[in-house]
């Protein structure tokens, strides 16, 4: 099976969908000639032309707002937000408009729109090129939120997102773009939205994670295996709708649950997961549902010392697992 980096899988998937369906277009800042600041759209402008690969002005609200309109009138736009940190000017368009159009029109109008954005820290991006923003959007009914962790899933989930009839936020951890590789079949498979994956079976502690943290969770699980702690890792893949069945099923089996996320801890996405598990698996819990998450400061600091302090990593997860296992 061919091997791909994370970003190659994404790039080829976009190209493939554009070949398959001419209603798919790409728009965003620098997505044309330059091919995107991370090169996620490299080559698309040459292949599909400036009608379907549109370099927009530096205006995120416009990127999303015009995409909503284009989606209403027969296209399936893939909007790129250059960094997830810069999605905030488009917040109103996403939350007030894209998310609510179908509901408020009583199903008269849908918005088949995919918004891609690189997120996450650990790349010297500081406060404004490191953010995790999934908590904001996964709270909003009407939006779907996807965070893949492997090239295989990235392809399968991106296909599902583009073909979906509702707005999907598709967040890609920028640290994984070139550092993560994996097998990606050439077939037209999809990974359905709303299904988590158990990426490592185990019996004593369930670790729930997504994106880069899904890798770190696996690494931590491996480390503690030597100490005799058996960890089951759940990679959520889709944050909304949440695959409660898989999550609760795993925790009912292991009796312990650690939720890992990179975003600020307070009110982060993992809070919802923890609250859900704490309620719905209560009778099965042998220890508190705990969280390992980013510290509650307003952004990842730039200096490498501070950045290392901020970032959740396998060592910090390992410590969390040990503590929970010993409970």
């Amino acid at each position: 099976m061919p091997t791909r980096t994370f970003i190659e899988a994404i790039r080829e998937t976009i190209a493939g969908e554009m070949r398959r369906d001419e209603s798919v277009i790409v728009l965003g800042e620098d997505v044309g000639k330059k091919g995107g600041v991370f090169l996620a759209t490299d080559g698309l402008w040459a292949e599909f032309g400036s009608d379907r690969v549109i370099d927009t002005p530096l205006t995120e609200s416009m990127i999303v707002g015009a995409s909503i309109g284009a989606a209403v009138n027969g296209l399936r736009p893939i909007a790129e937000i250059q960094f997830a940190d810069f999605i905030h000017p488009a917040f109103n368009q996403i939350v007030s408009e894209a998310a609510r159009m179908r509901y408020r029109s009583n199903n008269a109008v849908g918005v088949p729109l995919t918004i891609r954005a690189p997120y996450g820290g650990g790349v010297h991006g500081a406060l404004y090129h490191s953010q995790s923003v999934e908590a904001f959007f996964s709270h909003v009914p009407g939006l779907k939120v996807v965070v893949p962790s492997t090239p295989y899933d990235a392809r399968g989930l991106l296909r599902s997102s583009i073909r979906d009839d509702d707005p999907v936020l598709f967040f890609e951890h920028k640290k994984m773009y070139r550092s993560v590789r994996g097998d990606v079949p050439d077939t037209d498979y999809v990974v359905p939205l709303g299904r988590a994956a158990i990426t490592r079976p185990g019996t004593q502690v369930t670790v729930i994670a997504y994106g880069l943290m899904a890798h770190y969770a696996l690494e931590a699980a491996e480390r503690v295996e030597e100490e005799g702690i058996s960890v089951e890792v759940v990679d959520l893949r889709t944050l909304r709708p949440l695959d409660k069945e898989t999550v609760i099923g795993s925790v009912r089996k292991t009796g312990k649950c650690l939720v890992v996320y990179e975003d600020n801890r307070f009110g982060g996405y993992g809070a919802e997961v923890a609250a859900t598990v704490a309620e719905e698996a209560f009778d099965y819990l042998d220890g508190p549902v705990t969280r390992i998450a980013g510290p509650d400061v307003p952004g990842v600091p730039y200096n490498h010392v501070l950045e290392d302090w901020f970032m959740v990593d396998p060592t910090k997860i390992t410590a969390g697992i040990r503590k929970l296992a010993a409970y």
Partner: protein
Amino acid sequence: MTATRQRAKAAPHLGAAAGLDDDELLAMYRMVALARAVDERMWILNRAGRIPFVISGQGHEGAQVGVTWALRKGHDWIAPFYRSIAMCMTFGMSARDIMLAQYARASDPSSGGRQMPGHYGDRRHNLLSVSSPVATQILHAVGIALAAKIRGTAQVALTAMGEGLSNQGDVHEALNFAAIHKLPFVFLVENNGYAISVPAVMELAVPDVAARAAGYGIPGVVVDGADVLACYVAAKTAIERARAGDGPTLIEAKVTRLTGHSSDDQQTKYRTEEEMALEKGRDALPRFRDQLRAAGILTPAVEAALTEEIAAIVTDATEFAEGEPDPEPSTAMRWVYAEDWPSETPPPWGFGEGDDDAGSGSEGGGPAAGGD
């Protein structure tokens, strides 16, 4: 349209410059008058306690009918705003459709009773659903125009809003993008001199919103919103330009707001009696009527028939909407997504109508929401 049949003789010339024949002129007038009549009935129903909230298009109808008349119904697109009653009706919505929204009935085509009145929309007529955080719709219209251009559909997209809303950032971003790509897009600003209580001089540092067009390299046209035919001509020019691939136009229609901002607003607090009296003189309805009378198009017989027809339509619409059922709670979780999603679970109270004191709260009813 029985009224148009009863007309005695055609006056020459009134519609000539605009390329409109007498039938069309009369049909336009009928639309202005009908929208006004529906609107007036809304206020009566509100005062009578039948509907909790009204937001009105009175004083804007001439511009809306004139501009909308120049679009291709069932082909072009409109992203309207909360005052767009006449626009929506000209583009295909019926008086019943408007009244169903006032009553928030299950069969309301705008939202199935989910949205406040004023949030019109009708997919059957290419009218996009209105939201409250206004000005956002300009980007939707621009996106619709982008899709029209890419797909080669020869559609034009138009959006409308007040001068207050035109100060929102989204308007800047939208005009810039539409201008760069010469999109088939028309921007109608209905300038009534107020954003709720804030007068134009506190909203803008220029007398005309149209002055902004130059910053995007597009035409900016000011038109008297009480002059229905001038509005039609301005729109026709803009729409032809758009359809020809020459890009967007900003049309500013100077209109008047004959009512308070909404049924929650007391405009006497910030507007003098004299000013409000003067504004009545800027109403398109009597002006258009006088034009048609003078041209011999609106004869007494035609006018009487029309008045009767309109009254009947409004009464029918009201009675129809009154009689329609409310939506079922069991539908409340539908259409969050295109499909039902297994993990999006209903609340513990399910979909029952709830017992009697559900929703009562310790505090009793709250005040009506102000503003829109």
